[in-house]
Protein backbone atom coordinates (compact mmCIF):
# COMPACT_ATOMS: atom_id res chain seq x y z
CA UNK A 1 0.00 0.00 0.00
CA UNK A 2 1.02 3.59 -0.67
CA UNK A 3 3.04 5.19 2.19
CA UNK A 4 0.73 8.20 2.52
CA UNK A 5 -2.28 5.95 3.19
CA UNK A 6 -0.41 4.05 5.86
CA UNK A 7 0.54 7.30 7.57
CA UNK A 8 -3.01 8.65 7.53
CA UNK A 9 -4.27 5.35 8.93
CA UNK A 10 -1.66 5.25 11.74
CA UNK A 11 -2.15 8.90 12.71
CA UNK A 12 -5.93 8.75 12.34
CA UNK A 13 -6.27 5.59 14.45
CA UNK A 14 -4.01 6.86 17.22
CA UNK A 15 -5.80 10.22 17.31
CA UNK A 16 -9.25 8.66 17.53
CA UNK A 17 -7.94 6.52 20.38
CA UNK A 18 -6.87 9.66 22.28
CA UNK A 19 -10.21 11.34 21.66
CA UNK A 20 -12.10 8.24 22.74
CA UNK A 21 -10.14 8.11 25.99
CA UNK A 22 -10.80 11.81 26.57
CA UNK A 23 -14.55 11.35 26.28
CA UNK A 24 -14.47 8.35 28.60
CA UNK A 25 -12.46 10.21 31.28
CA UNK A 26 -14.07 13.63 31.61
CA UNK A 27 -13.14 15.50 34.78
CA UNK A 28 -16.00 16.47 37.10
CA UNK A 29 -14.14 18.07 40.02
CA UNK A 30 -11.00 20.15 40.56
CA UNK A 31 -9.38 17.14 42.18
CA UNK A 32 -9.96 15.13 39.02
CA UNK A 33 -8.84 18.04 36.86
CA UNK A 34 -5.58 18.70 38.76
CA UNK A 35 -4.53 15.24 39.99
CA UNK A 36 -6.83 12.75 38.20
CA UNK A 37 -8.75 12.16 41.44
CA UNK A 38 -5.61 10.80 43.10
CA UNK A 39 -6.32 7.16 42.34
CA UNK A 40 -4.08 6.26 39.41
CA UNK A 41 -2.38 2.84 39.51
CA UNK A 42 1.42 3.15 39.93
CA UNK A 43 2.20 1.26 36.71
CA UNK A 44 -0.25 3.39 34.70
CA UNK A 45 1.24 6.46 36.32
CA UNK A 46 4.72 5.19 35.43
CA UNK A 47 3.72 4.93 31.78
CA UNK A 48 2.05 8.32 31.83
CA UNK A 49 5.15 9.85 33.44
CA UNK A 50 7.37 8.26 30.83
CA UNK A 51 5.25 9.64 27.97
CA UNK A 52 5.02 13.01 29.71
CA UNK A 53 8.77 13.05 30.09
CA UNK A 54 9.87 11.82 26.67
CA UNK A 55 9.24 14.68 24.31
CA UNK A 56 9.64 15.10 20.57
CA UNK A 57 13.29 15.83 21.32
CA UNK A 58 13.84 12.46 23.05
CA UNK A 59 12.02 10.60 20.31
CA UNK A 60 13.35 12.31 17.18
CA UNK A 61 16.55 14.18 18.05
CA UNK A 62 18.33 12.40 20.88
CA UNK A 63 19.70 9.38 19.01
CA UNK A 64 20.98 11.75 16.32
CA UNK A 65 22.65 14.05 18.81
CA UNK A 66 24.40 11.08 20.43
CA UNK A 67 25.36 9.77 17.03
CA UNK A 68 27.24 13.00 16.27
CA UNK A 69 28.56 13.58 19.78
CA UNK A 70 29.58 10.01 20.69
CA UNK A 71 30.66 10.00 24.32
CA UNK A 72 29.65 13.68 24.66
CA UNK A 73 26.04 12.60 24.13
CA UNK A 74 26.18 10.63 27.39
CA UNK A 75 25.26 13.79 29.31
CA UNK A 76 21.70 13.47 27.98
CA UNK A 77 21.47 9.75 28.63
CA UNK A 78 22.62 10.00 32.24
CA UNK A 79 21.17 13.45 32.87
CA UNK A 80 17.65 12.70 31.69
CA UNK A 81 17.38 9.41 33.61
CA UNK A 82 19.39 9.99 36.81
CA UNK A 83 16.93 12.64 37.98
CA UNK A 84 14.38 9.89 38.65
CA UNK A 85 16.59 8.50 41.40
CA UNK A 86 16.47 11.91 43.09
CA UNK A 87 12.71 12.04 42.56
CA UNK A 88 12.06 8.59 44.00
CA UNK A 89 14.40 8.92 46.97
CA UNK A 90 14.18 12.59 47.88
CA UNK A 91 11.02 14.24 46.59
CA UNK A 92 8.10 12.20 45.23
CA UNK A 93 7.01 10.27 48.37
CA UNK A 94 7.01 13.36 50.58
CA UNK A 95 5.26 15.60 48.08
CA UNK A 96 2.59 12.91 47.70
CA UNK A 97 2.24 12.74 51.49
CA UNK A 98 1.84 16.52 51.57
CA UNK A 99 -1.13 15.85 49.32
CA UNK A 100 -1.92 19.11 47.56
CA UNK A 101 -2.25 19.83 43.85
CA UNK A 102 0.78 21.76 42.60
CA UNK A 103 4.44 22.53 43.26
CA UNK A 104 3.76 26.19 44.21
CA UNK A 105 1.23 24.77 46.71
CA UNK A 106 4.04 23.04 48.55
CA UNK A 107 6.43 26.00 48.38
CA UNK A 108 3.70 28.43 49.48
CA UNK A 109 2.54 26.31 52.43
CA UNK A 110 5.91 25.05 53.62
CA UNK A 111 7.38 28.55 53.55
CA UNK A 112 4.12 30.10 54.88
CA UNK A 113 4.34 32.94 52.41
CA UNK A 114 2.56 34.14 49.29
CA UNK A 115 5.81 35.74 48.13
CA UNK A 116 7.38 32.29 48.01
CA UNK A 117 4.27 31.02 46.20
CA UNK A 118 4.51 33.81 43.62
CA UNK A 119 8.18 33.13 42.95
CA UNK A 120 7.32 29.46 42.45
CA UNK A 121 4.42 30.29 40.10
CA UNK A 122 6.69 32.57 38.08
CA UNK A 123 9.34 29.85 37.73
CA UNK A 124 6.74 27.18 36.87
CA UNK A 125 5.30 29.38 34.11
CA UNK A 126 8.67 30.24 32.51
CA UNK A 127 9.86 26.65 32.60
CA UNK A 128 6.64 25.27 31.13
CA UNK A 129 6.27 27.88 28.38
CA UNK A 130 9.81 27.50 27.08
CA UNK A 131 9.19 23.80 26.91
CA UNK A 132 5.74 23.75 25.35
CA UNK A 133 6.63 26.05 22.45
CA UNK A 134 9.19 23.47 21.33
CA UNK A 135 6.61 20.67 21.53
CA UNK A 136 4.02 22.42 19.37
CA UNK A 137 6.74 23.14 16.85
CA UNK A 138 7.62 19.44 16.90
CA UNK A 139 4.00 18.54 16.13
CA UNK A 140 4.03 20.96 13.19
CA UNK A 141 7.29 19.61 11.81
CA UNK A 142 6.16 15.98 11.99
CA UNK A 143 2.88 16.80 10.28
CA UNK A 144 4.56 18.73 7.50
CA UNK A 145 7.21 16.10 6.91
CA UNK A 146 4.98 13.05 6.86
CA UNK A 147 1.54 14.27 5.89
CA UNK A 148 2.61 16.95 3.46
CA UNK A 149 0.44 19.63 5.01
CA UNK A 150 2.10 22.92 5.92
CA UNK A 151 3.46 23.57 9.39
CA UNK A 152 0.65 25.97 10.36
CA UNK A 153 -2.06 23.40 9.58
CA UNK A 154 -0.03 20.78 11.44
CA UNK A 155 0.23 22.95 14.55
CA UNK A 156 -3.49 23.75 14.39
CA UNK A 157 -4.47 20.07 14.19
CA UNK A 158 -2.15 19.32 17.12
CA UNK A 159 -3.63 22.20 19.12
CA UNK A 160 -7.16 20.97 18.44
CA UNK A 161 -6.39 17.47 19.72
CA UNK A 162 -4.55 18.61 22.85
CA UNK A 163 -7.22 21.20 23.57
CA UNK A 164 -9.91 18.57 23.32
CA UNK A 165 -8.53 16.09 25.79
CA UNK A 166 -6.71 18.44 28.14
CA UNK A 167 -9.59 20.89 28.56
CA UNK A 168 -12.23 18.20 28.79
CA UNK A 169 -10.42 15.68 30.90
CA UNK A 170 -7.81 17.68 32.78
CA UNK A 171 -5.21 15.51 34.47
CA UNK A 172 -7.54 12.51 34.29
CA UNK A 173 -7.87 12.72 30.52
CA UNK A 174 -4.17 13.51 30.13
CA UNK A 175 -3.09 10.58 32.29
CA UNK A 176 -4.97 7.92 30.36
CA UNK A 177 -4.15 9.35 26.93
CA UNK A 178 -0.50 9.43 28.01
CA UNK A 179 -0.67 5.73 28.84
CA UNK A 180 -1.89 5.09 25.30
CA UNK A 181 0.70 7.47 23.88
CA UNK A 182 3.49 5.67 25.72
CA UNK A 183 2.46 2.38 24.11
CA UNK A 184 2.35 3.96 20.67
CA UNK A 185 5.68 5.74 20.98
CA UNK A 186 7.69 2.89 22.49
CA UNK A 187 6.38 0.43 19.89
CA UNK A 188 7.20 2.90 17.12
CA UNK A 189 10.71 3.43 18.47
CA UNK A 190 11.56 -0.21 19.13
CA UNK A 191 10.36 -1.88 15.91
CA UNK A 192 12.88 -0.14 13.60
CA UNK A 193 15.59 -0.40 16.29
CA UNK A 194 15.22 -4.17 16.64
CA UNK A 195 15.07 -4.59 12.89
CA UNK A 196 18.24 -2.58 12.30
CA UNK A 197 20.11 -4.24 15.13
CA UNK A 198 19.34 -7.62 13.61
CA UNK A 199 20.36 -6.41 10.16
CA UNK A 200 23.71 -4.98 11.28
CA UNK A 201 24.80 -7.40 14.02
CA UNK A 202 22.49 -10.39 13.89
CA UNK A 203 21.37 -9.68 17.46
CA UNK A 204 17.73 -8.71 17.96
CA UNK A 205 18.36 -6.87 21.23
CA UNK A 206 19.75 -3.42 20.32
CA UNK A 207 21.41 -3.02 23.75
CA UNK A 208 23.49 -6.14 23.04
CA UNK A 209 23.92 -5.52 19.33
CA UNK A 210 25.52 -2.21 20.31
CA UNK A 211 28.50 -4.14 21.73
CA UNK A 212 28.63 -6.86 19.09
CA UNK A 213 30.52 -7.17 15.85
CA UNK A 214 29.26 -6.72 12.32
CA UNK A 215 29.50 -9.15 9.40
CA UNK A 216 33.27 -8.52 9.13
CA UNK A 217 33.89 -9.69 12.72
CA UNK A 218 35.16 -6.31 13.95
CA UNK A 219 33.42 -4.85 17.02
CA UNK A 220 31.11 -2.07 15.89
CA UNK A 221 32.45 0.49 18.35
CA UNK A 222 36.08 -0.27 17.44
CA UNK A 223 35.23 0.10 13.80
CA UNK A 224 33.49 3.41 14.43
CA UNK A 225 36.45 4.73 16.45
CA UNK A 226 38.67 3.80 13.52
CA UNK A 227 36.43 5.52 10.96
CA UNK A 228 36.32 8.63 13.14
CA UNK A 229 40.12 8.75 13.38
CA UNK A 230 40.47 8.43 9.61
CA UNK A 231 38.04 11.27 8.94
CA UNK A 232 39.54 13.55 11.60
CA UNK A 233 36.67 13.46 14.13
CA UNK A 234 37.37 12.85 17.81
CA UNK A 235 37.07 9.16 18.73
CA UNK A 236 33.43 8.08 19.13
CA UNK A 237 33.93 6.54 22.57
CA UNK A 238 35.87 9.50 23.99
CA UNK A 239 34.59 13.02 24.20
CA UNK A 240 35.59 16.52 23.18
CA UNK A 241 34.10 18.34 26.18
CA UNK A 242 36.07 18.99 29.39
CA UNK A 243 35.38 16.62 32.27
CA UNK A 244 34.19 19.46 34.52
CA UNK A 245 31.70 20.61 31.90
CA UNK A 246 30.37 17.08 31.33
CA UNK A 247 30.01 16.73 35.10
CA UNK A 248 28.12 20.04 35.45
CA UNK A 249 25.79 19.46 32.49
CA UNK A 250 24.89 15.97 33.72
CA UNK A 251 24.23 17.31 37.21
CA UNK A 252 22.12 20.23 35.94
CA UNK A 253 20.00 17.92 33.78
CA UNK A 254 19.48 15.40 36.60
CA UNK A 255 18.55 17.98 39.19
CA UNK A 256 16.51 19.90 36.62
CA UNK A 257 14.53 16.73 35.82
CA UNK A 258 13.75 16.30 39.50
CA UNK A 259 12.65 19.93 39.71
CA UNK A 260 10.41 20.12 36.65
CA UNK A 261 6.85 20.84 37.75
CA UNK A 262 5.15 18.77 35.05
CA UNK A 263 7.11 15.71 36.18
CA UNK A 264 6.56 16.32 39.90
CA UNK A 265 2.78 16.74 39.62
CA UNK A 266 2.49 13.27 38.11
CA UNK A 267 3.32 11.88 41.56
CA UNK A 268 0.35 13.69 43.10
CA UNK A 269 -1.99 11.45 41.10
CA UNK A 270 -1.34 8.12 42.86
CA UNK A 271 -3.24 6.78 45.84
CA UNK A 272 -0.58 6.55 48.54
CA UNK A 273 3.03 7.34 49.44
CA UNK A 274 4.41 3.91 48.60
CA UNK A 275 2.73 4.18 45.18
CA UNK A 276 4.64 7.41 44.52
CA UNK A 277 7.92 5.53 44.98
CA UNK A 278 6.69 2.64 42.86
CA UNK A 279 5.55 4.80 40.00
CA UNK A 280 8.93 6.61 39.92
CA UNK A 281 10.54 3.19 39.53
CA UNK A 282 8.16 2.11 36.77
CA UNK A 283 8.54 5.46 35.03
CA UNK A 284 12.31 5.11 34.91
CA UNK A 285 12.05 1.52 33.72
CA UNK A 286 9.76 2.57 30.86
CA UNK A 287 12.04 5.49 30.02
CA UNK A 288 15.13 3.28 30.18
CA UNK A 289 13.76 1.06 27.40
CA UNK A 290 14.02 4.00 24.99
CA UNK A 291 17.10 5.58 26.55
CA UNK A 292 19.26 2.46 26.38
CA UNK A 293 18.13 1.81 22.80
CA UNK A 294 18.90 5.32 21.55
CA UNK A 295 22.71 5.04 21.86
CA UNK A 296 22.56 1.72 20.00
CA UNK A 297 20.60 3.32 17.15
CA UNK A 298 23.16 6.14 17.21
CA UNK A 299 26.01 3.70 16.57
CA UNK A 300 24.20 1.67 13.90
CA UNK A 301 23.15 4.70 11.93
CA UNK A 302 26.46 6.51 12.31
CA UNK A 303 28.38 3.51 10.95
CA UNK A 304 25.78 3.05 8.24
CA UNK A 305 26.02 6.68 7.20
CA UNK A 306 29.81 6.85 7.04
CA UNK A 307 30.10 3.57 5.16
CA UNK A 308 27.39 4.53 2.68
CA UNK A 309 28.60 8.02 1.81
CA UNK A 310 32.27 8.46 2.62
CA UNK A 311 34.34 8.78 -0.59
CA UNK A 312 31.52 7.28 -2.65
CA UNK A 313 30.40 8.82 -5.95
CA UNK A 314 27.43 11.15 -5.50
CA UNK A 315 25.56 9.70 -8.46
CA UNK A 316 25.53 6.21 -6.86
CA UNK A 317 23.73 7.35 -3.73
CA UNK A 318 20.57 5.40 -2.80
CA UNK A 319 17.09 6.83 -3.22
CA UNK A 320 16.67 8.02 0.40
CA UNK A 321 19.68 10.30 -0.06
CA UNK A 322 17.84 12.32 -2.74
CA UNK A 323 14.63 12.37 -0.74
CA UNK A 324 16.21 13.77 2.42
CA UNK A 325 18.32 16.17 0.40
CA UNK A 326 15.14 17.85 -0.84
CA UNK A 327 13.93 18.31 2.77
CA UNK A 328 17.17 20.12 3.57
CA UNK A 329 18.19 17.64 6.28
CA UNK A 330 21.02 16.36 4.09
CA UNK A 331 23.21 18.69 2.07
CA UNK A 332 26.01 18.01 -0.39
CA UNK A 333 28.26 20.54 -2.12
CA UNK A 334 31.05 19.14 -4.28
CA UNK A 335 33.81 21.53 -3.22
CA UNK A 336 36.70 19.86 -5.04
CA UNK A 337 34.46 18.76 -7.92
CA UNK A 338 35.61 15.14 -8.00
CA UNK A 339 32.06 13.73 -7.86
CA UNK A 340 32.86 11.91 -4.60
CA UNK A 341 31.43 12.74 -1.18
CA UNK A 342 34.16 13.85 1.23
CA UNK A 343 32.84 13.73 4.79
CA UNK A 344 35.45 15.07 7.24
CA UNK A 345 35.77 17.01 10.48
CA UNK A 346 37.55 19.85 8.67
CA UNK A 347 34.88 22.39 7.64
CA UNK A 348 36.92 23.70 4.69
CA UNK A 349 37.02 20.33 2.92
CA UNK A 350 33.86 18.72 4.31
CA UNK A 351 31.19 18.41 1.62
CA UNK A 352 28.30 16.82 3.52
CA UNK A 353 25.99 18.42 6.09
CA UNK A 354 23.70 16.12 8.05
CA UNK A 355 20.90 17.18 10.40
CA UNK A 356 20.81 15.18 13.64
CA UNK A 357 17.07 14.42 13.28
CA UNK A 358 17.67 12.29 10.22
CA UNK A 359 19.18 9.46 12.26
CA UNK A 360 15.78 8.41 13.60
CA UNK A 361 13.55 9.68 10.83
CA UNK A 362 15.41 8.15 7.91
CA UNK A 363 16.40 4.96 9.68
CA UNK A 364 13.51 2.81 8.38
CA UNK A 365 14.23 3.92 4.82
CA UNK A 366 17.96 3.36 5.11
CA UNK A 367 17.25 -0.12 6.44
CA UNK A 368 14.51 -0.60 3.79
CA UNK A 369 11.78 -1.40 6.27
CA UNK A 370 8.18 -1.75 5.08
CA UNK A 371 5.96 1.33 4.76
CA UNK A 372 3.85 0.60 7.82
CA UNK A 373 6.94 0.99 10.02
CA UNK A 374 7.52 4.49 8.67
CA UNK A 375 3.85 5.30 9.33
CA UNK A 376 4.27 4.00 12.85
CA UNK A 377 7.24 6.30 13.36
CA UNK A 378 5.11 9.32 12.40
CA UNK A 379 2.41 8.33 14.90
CA UNK A 380 5.07 7.72 17.56
CA UNK A 381 6.70 11.11 17.10
CA UNK A 382 3.29 12.79 17.35
CA UNK A 383 2.47 10.81 20.50
CA UNK A 384 5.75 11.94 22.08
CA UNK A 385 5.17 15.61 21.28
CA UNK A 386 1.46 15.68 22.22
CA UNK A 387 1.86 13.88 25.54
CA UNK A 388 4.55 16.26 26.73
CA UNK A 389 2.62 19.30 25.53
CA UNK A 390 -0.49 18.16 27.43
CA UNK A 391 1.42 17.63 30.67
CA UNK A 392 2.94 21.10 30.45
CA UNK A 393 -0.42 22.60 29.62
CA UNK A 394 -1.87 21.29 32.83
CA UNK A 395 0.93 22.84 34.89
CA UNK A 396 0.29 26.20 33.25
CA UNK A 397 -3.48 26.05 33.73
CA UNK A 398 -3.24 24.92 37.36
CA UNK A 399 -0.63 27.61 38.10
CA UNK A 400 -3.12 30.20 36.87
CA UNK A 401 -6.43 28.85 38.19
CA UNK A 402 -5.24 27.23 41.41
CA UNK A 403 -2.08 29.01 42.59
CA UNK A 404 -2.83 32.51 41.37
CA UNK A 405 -6.61 32.70 41.43
CA UNK A 406 -7.73 30.36 44.21
CA UNK A 407 -4.78 30.80 46.57
CA UNK A 408 -4.01 34.47 46.11
CA UNK A 409 -6.52 36.59 44.18
CA UNK A 410 -9.95 35.08 44.87
CA UNK A 411 -9.70 32.66 47.81
CA UNK A 412 -13.49 32.30 47.99
CA UNK A 413 -13.99 31.11 44.41
CA UNK A 414 -16.32 28.09 44.24
CA UNK A 415 -15.22 24.63 43.12
CA UNK A 416 -17.23 25.05 39.93
CA UNK A 417 -15.77 28.50 39.27
CA UNK A 418 -12.24 27.19 39.74
CA UNK A 419 -12.90 24.35 37.31
CA UNK A 420 -14.16 26.81 34.70
CA UNK A 421 -11.12 29.03 35.32
CA UNK A 422 -8.83 26.03 34.91
CA UNK A 423 -10.44 25.19 31.55
CA UNK A 424 -10.20 28.79 30.34
CA UNK A 425 -6.56 28.95 31.42
CA UNK A 426 -5.83 25.69 29.58
CA UNK A 427 -7.48 27.05 26.43
CA UNK A 428 -5.48 30.27 26.65
CA UNK A 429 -2.26 28.33 27.18
CA UNK A 430 -2.94 26.13 24.12
CA UNK A 431 -3.49 29.19 21.94
CA UNK A 432 -0.30 30.84 23.19
CA UNK A 433 1.68 27.62 22.72
CA UNK A 434 0.22 27.29 19.23
CA UNK A 435 1.23 30.83 18.41
CA UNK A 436 4.82 30.09 19.44
CA UNK A 437 4.68 26.83 17.49
CA UNK A 438 3.73 28.70 14.31
CA UNK A 439 6.06 31.65 14.92
CA UNK A 440 8.89 29.98 16.81
CA UNK A 441 10.99 32.48 18.70
CA UNK A 442 14.63 32.02 17.73
CA UNK A 443 15.49 31.07 21.27
CA UNK A 444 13.49 27.82 21.52
CA UNK A 445 16.49 25.53 21.10
CA UNK A 446 18.62 27.58 23.46
CA UNK A 447 15.94 27.73 26.12
CA UNK A 448 15.57 24.01 26.70
CA UNK A 449 18.82 24.27 28.62
CA UNK A 450 17.34 27.29 30.37
CA UNK A 451 14.29 25.32 31.47
CA UNK A 452 16.46 22.69 33.15
CA UNK A 453 18.83 25.25 34.62
CA UNK A 454 15.91 27.22 36.02
CA UNK A 455 14.21 24.18 37.51
CA UNK A 456 17.51 23.08 39.06
CA UNK A 457 18.37 26.49 40.45
CA UNK A 458 14.91 27.38 41.78
CA UNK A 459 12.68 24.48 42.83
CA UNK A 460 15.04 21.68 43.69
CA UNK A 461 16.84 23.28 46.68
CA UNK A 462 13.62 24.81 48.04
CA UNK A 463 11.71 21.52 47.93
CA UNK A 464 14.60 19.37 49.15
CA UNK A 465 15.44 21.59 52.11
CA UNK A 466 11.74 22.04 52.84
CA UNK A 467 11.48 18.29 53.42
CA UNK A 468 14.83 17.43 54.98
CA UNK A 469 15.26 20.45 57.25
CA UNK A 470 12.83 21.88 59.77
CA UNK A 471 15.02 24.90 60.31
CA UNK A 472 14.88 26.47 56.82
CA UNK A 473 12.53 29.46 56.88
CA UNK A 474 10.85 31.65 54.29
CA UNK A 475 13.55 34.32 54.30
CA UNK A 476 16.16 31.72 53.39
CA UNK A 477 14.08 29.91 50.78
CA UNK A 478 12.88 33.04 48.98
CA UNK A 479 16.30 34.68 48.78
CA UNK A 480 17.82 31.35 47.72
CA UNK A 481 15.33 30.90 44.87
CA UNK A 482 15.76 34.49 43.73
CA UNK A 483 19.57 34.31 43.76
CA UNK A 484 19.55 30.95 41.92
CA UNK A 485 17.12 32.07 39.22
CA UNK A 486 18.75 35.48 38.72
CA UNK A 487 22.21 33.97 38.43
CA UNK A 488 20.97 31.39 35.93
CA UNK A 489 19.08 33.97 33.84
CA UNK A 490 22.10 36.29 33.87
CA UNK A 491 24.48 33.58 32.68
CA UNK A 492 22.10 32.40 29.95
CA UNK A 493 21.38 35.89 28.67
CA UNK A 494 25.07 36.78 28.70
CA UNK A 495 26.40 33.72 26.92
CA UNK A 496 23.42 32.64 24.79
CA UNK A 497 21.94 35.98 23.77
CA UNK A 498 24.92 38.32 24.07
CA UNK A 499 23.38 40.60 26.72
CA UNK A 500 25.53 42.24 29.43
CA UNK A 501 28.49 42.42 27.05
CA UNK A 502 28.09 38.83 25.81
CA UNK A 503 31.05 36.51 25.76
CA UNK A 504 32.53 33.51 24.02
CA UNK A 505 33.53 30.06 25.16
CA UNK A 506 36.82 31.47 26.44
CA UNK A 507 34.93 33.72 28.91
CA UNK A 508 32.85 30.92 30.48
CA UNK A 509 33.22 30.89 34.26
CA UNK A 510 35.49 27.93 35.17
CA UNK A 511 34.96 26.71 31.59
CA UNK A 512 31.35 25.73 32.33
CA UNK A 513 28.85 25.99 29.46
CA UNK A 514 25.44 27.68 29.96
CA UNK A 515 23.87 24.18 29.78
CA UNK A 516 25.88 23.13 32.82
CA UNK A 517 25.61 26.37 34.75
CA UNK A 518 22.38 25.26 36.44
CA UNK A 519 24.59 23.19 38.78
CA UNK A 520 26.50 26.26 39.91
CA UNK A 521 23.34 28.35 40.29
CA UNK A 522 21.82 25.51 42.33
CA UNK A 523 24.82 25.46 44.66
CA UNK A 524 24.50 29.23 45.07
CA UNK A 525 20.83 28.75 45.95
CA UNK A 526 21.71 26.14 48.61
CA UNK A 527 24.44 28.33 50.15
CA UNK A 528 22.29 31.48 50.28
CA UNK A 529 19.29 29.60 51.70
CA UNK A 530 21.37 28.00 54.47
CA UNK A 531 23.19 31.21 55.45
CA UNK A 532 20.10 33.45 55.50
CA UNK A 533 18.02 30.86 57.34
CA UNK A 534 20.59 30.48 60.09
CA UNK A 535 20.54 34.23 60.71
CA UNK A 536 16.74 34.61 60.85
CA UNK A 537 14.07 33.11 63.16
CA UNK A 538 13.09 29.44 62.77
CA UNK A 539 9.65 28.64 61.31
CA UNK A 540 6.71 28.30 63.69
CA UNK A 541 5.71 25.10 65.53
CA UNK A 542 2.92 24.46 63.00
CA UNK A 543 5.33 24.39 60.08
CA UNK A 544 7.72 22.10 61.96
CA UNK A 545 4.77 19.79 62.61
CA UNK A 546 3.89 19.88 58.92
CA UNK A 547 7.42 18.79 58.03
CA UNK A 548 7.42 16.06 60.69
CA UNK A 549 4.10 14.86 59.33
CA UNK A 550 5.16 14.51 55.68
CA UNK A 551 8.08 12.35 56.82
CA UNK A 552 5.76 9.73 58.33
CA UNK A 553 4.75 6.91 55.99
Amino acid sequence: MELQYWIWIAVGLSFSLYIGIAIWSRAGSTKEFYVAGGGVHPIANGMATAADWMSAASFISMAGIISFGGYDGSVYLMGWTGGYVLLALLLAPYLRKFGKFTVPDFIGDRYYSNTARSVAVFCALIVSFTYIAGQMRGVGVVFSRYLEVDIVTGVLIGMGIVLFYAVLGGMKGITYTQVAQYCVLIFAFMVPAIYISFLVTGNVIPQLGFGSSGADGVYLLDKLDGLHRELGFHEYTSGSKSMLDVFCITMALMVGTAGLPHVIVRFFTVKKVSDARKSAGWALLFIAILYTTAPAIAVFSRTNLIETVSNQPYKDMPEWFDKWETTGLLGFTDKNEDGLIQYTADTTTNELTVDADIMVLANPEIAQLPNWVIALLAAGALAAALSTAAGLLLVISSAVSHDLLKKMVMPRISEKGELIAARIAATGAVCLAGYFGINPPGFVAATVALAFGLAASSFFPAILLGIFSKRINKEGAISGMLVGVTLMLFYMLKFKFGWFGGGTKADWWFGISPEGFGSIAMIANFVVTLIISSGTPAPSKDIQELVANIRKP
Partner: protein
Amino acid sequence: MKNTYWQKNIRYISILLSLWFIVSFGCGILFVEQLNTIQIGGFKLGFWFAQQGSIFGFVAIIFTYIYLMNKLDQTQNK
Protein backbone atom coordinates in the same frame (compact mmCIF):
# COMPACT_ATOMS: atom_id res chain seq x y z
CA MET B 1 9.90 4.77 67.21
CA LYS B 2 8.99 7.38 64.59
CA ASN B 3 12.49 8.73 64.87
CA THR B 4 14.18 5.45 64.06
CA TYR B 5 11.94 5.10 61.02
CA TRP B 6 13.25 8.43 59.74
CA GLN B 7 16.86 7.62 60.62
CA LYS B 8 16.70 4.29 58.84
CA ASN B 9 15.18 6.00 55.81
CA ILE B 10 18.02 8.55 55.82
CA ARG B 11 20.56 5.73 56.02
CA TYR B 12 19.02 3.93 53.02
CA ILE B 13 18.93 7.18 51.06
CA SER B 14 22.59 8.00 51.76
CA ILE B 15 23.80 4.56 50.76
CA LEU B 16 21.70 4.46 47.59
CA LEU B 17 22.63 8.00 46.59
CA SER B 18 26.32 7.13 46.94
CA LEU B 19 25.70 4.25 44.53
CA TRP B 20 23.84 6.66 42.24
CA PHE B 21 26.88 8.92 42.25
CA ILE B 22 29.34 6.09 41.67
CA VAL B 23 27.61 4.51 38.65
CA SER B 24 27.04 7.82 36.86
CA PHE B 25 29.48 10.53 37.92
CA GLY B 26 32.13 8.07 39.11
CA CYS B 27 32.26 5.35 36.44
CA GLY B 28 30.73 7.40 33.62
CA ILE B 29 32.62 10.69 34.03
CA LEU B 30 35.40 10.99 36.62
CA PHE B 31 37.07 7.61 36.06
CA VAL B 32 35.91 7.05 32.51
CA GLU B 33 39.41 7.09 31.03
CA GLN B 34 40.80 4.55 33.49
CA LEU B 35 37.80 2.27 32.94
CA ASN B 36 38.07 2.64 29.17
CA THR B 37 41.33 0.68 29.27
CA ILE B 38 39.23 -2.35 30.21
CA GLN B 39 37.26 -3.82 27.34
CA ILE B 40 34.38 -6.24 27.78
CA GLY B 41 33.01 -7.61 24.50
CA GLY B 42 32.70 -4.67 22.15
CA PHE B 43 32.37 -2.14 24.96
CA LYS B 44 35.02 -0.03 26.62
CA LEU B 45 33.86 -0.19 30.23
CA GLY B 46 33.79 3.56 30.97
CA PHE B 47 31.85 4.30 27.79
CA TRP B 48 29.43 1.46 28.60
CA PHE B 49 28.76 2.92 32.05
CA ALA B 50 28.12 6.36 30.54
CA GLN B 51 25.66 5.15 27.91
CA GLN B 52 24.10 1.98 29.35
CA GLY B 53 25.34 0.85 32.76
CA SER B 54 24.43 4.00 34.66
CA ILE B 55 20.81 3.79 33.46
CA PHE B 56 20.48 0.12 34.45
CA GLY B 57 22.03 1.13 37.77
CA PHE B 58 19.44 3.86 38.32
CA VAL B 59 16.57 1.42 37.73
CA ALA B 60 18.09 -1.08 40.17
CA ILE B 61 18.62 1.64 42.80
CA ILE B 62 15.01 2.79 42.73
CA PHE B 63 13.58 -0.73 42.91
CA THR B 64 15.93 -1.52 45.81
CA TYR B 65 14.65 1.54 47.63
CA ILE B 66 11.03 0.53 46.96
CA TYR B 67 11.77 -2.90 48.41
CA LEU B 68 13.57 -1.57 51.50
CA MET B 69 10.92 1.04 52.25
CA ASN B 70 8.03 -1.37 51.82
CA LYS B 71 9.70 -3.64 54.37
CA LEU B 72 10.30 -0.71 56.70
CA ASP B 73 6.69 0.43 56.34
CA GLN B 74 5.50 -3.04 57.30
CA THR B 75 7.50 -3.08 60.54
CA GLN B 76 5.92 0.31 61.31
CA ASN B 77 2.40 -1.01 60.94
CA LYS B 78 2.91 -3.88 63.37
